[in-house]
């Protein structure tokens, strides 16, 4: 078998090949980085840490009496909003408190702040859960975050 010679074959010089390879790796790295970042989701921060950690510091008292909902923020985290999970007969739904109460303050419930508002609940409703909503900073500006962990949620039996 004759060996084919590789004379007069053109190719890229090793230096240029190295530069190209490194450039390709950097571009691929950036593509992977952006892809993973989108997949993981945007990080929302509050008090210079991940807002999920701040949720654990939320502390508020709640009471329902005579058609009124009472809230008192005795923690160190301002509460921007509240989501209300309403449990009825075999079903539940979650609504924003601002949608069922007229006088929820726009800036939320500050540290040490209190709130009382009239809320009409159907007689079939057995209990409600109050889920705090915080506001933090992300790359795209201010964003809200709902604290779904059990420590933050207040339950009221109707």
């Amino acid at each position, binding site marked *: 078998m004759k*060996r084919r010679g590789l004379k007069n074959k053109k190719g890229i010089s*090793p230096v240029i090949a190295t530069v190209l390879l490194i450039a390709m790796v*950097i571009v691929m790295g950036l593509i992977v980085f952006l892809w993973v970042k989108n997949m993981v989701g945007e990080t929302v921060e509050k008090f210079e840490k*991940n807002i999920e950690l701040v949720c654990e510091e939320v502390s508020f008292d709640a*009471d329902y009496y005579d058609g009124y909902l009472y809230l008192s923020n005795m*923690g*160190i985290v301002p509460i921007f909003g509240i989501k209300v999970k309403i449990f009825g007969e075999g079903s539940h739904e979650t609504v924003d408190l601002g949608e069922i109460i007229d006088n929820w303050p726009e800036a939320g419930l500050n*540290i040490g702040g209190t709130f009382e508002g009239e809320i009409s609940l159907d007689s079939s409703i057995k209990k409600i859960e109050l889920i705090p909503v915080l506001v933090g900073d992300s790359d795209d500006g201010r964003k809200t975050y709902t604290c779904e962990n059990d420590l933050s949620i207040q339950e009221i039996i109707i």
Partner: protein
Amino acid sequence: MFIHNKKAISIMIGYILLVTITIVISLLVYQWISSYIPKDSIKCDEGVSIFIKDVNYENGKLNLTIKNNGLFNVAGFIIHGTNNSEKELATIDLSGNLDSSGGGIKARNAIIFGGTNKNGIKSNEERNILFDLNEEIYSIEITPVRYQEEDNRMRFVICGNAKTSERLTND
């Protein structure tokens, strides 16, 4: 069998690729994990305590004497009230009813002494405060507040564990 004239990436370039990929992945992981590193959350010191030494409620005027019986200085307190005996949670903010002829100033939702960023009520000290209430109050609840240093700045902290209450009227 010898492998002559077979093309492959040179070892040097292989190393460069591996190191570069490792650096990129580690930067990704660091950026993601760094925000999850828990920092110590600011908490009220355990020895903080105030109590209502004396209270006089007459004709809508509330005269309150509080004493710092804790180990730490406090800045003041938050005062909430209820207007009937069946309400368990005190949500009427009485700080807006402060009578300025008495002691203290209103700051945020609290009554503080000694100015902002200062814990003006030292241990064993008393303060007298007057309130001009515009509705009948059944009971009051006071919670001490402090300024505590965190990351070289003073932060306003509510000491919810040191809350104390007092009934003003018989229902």
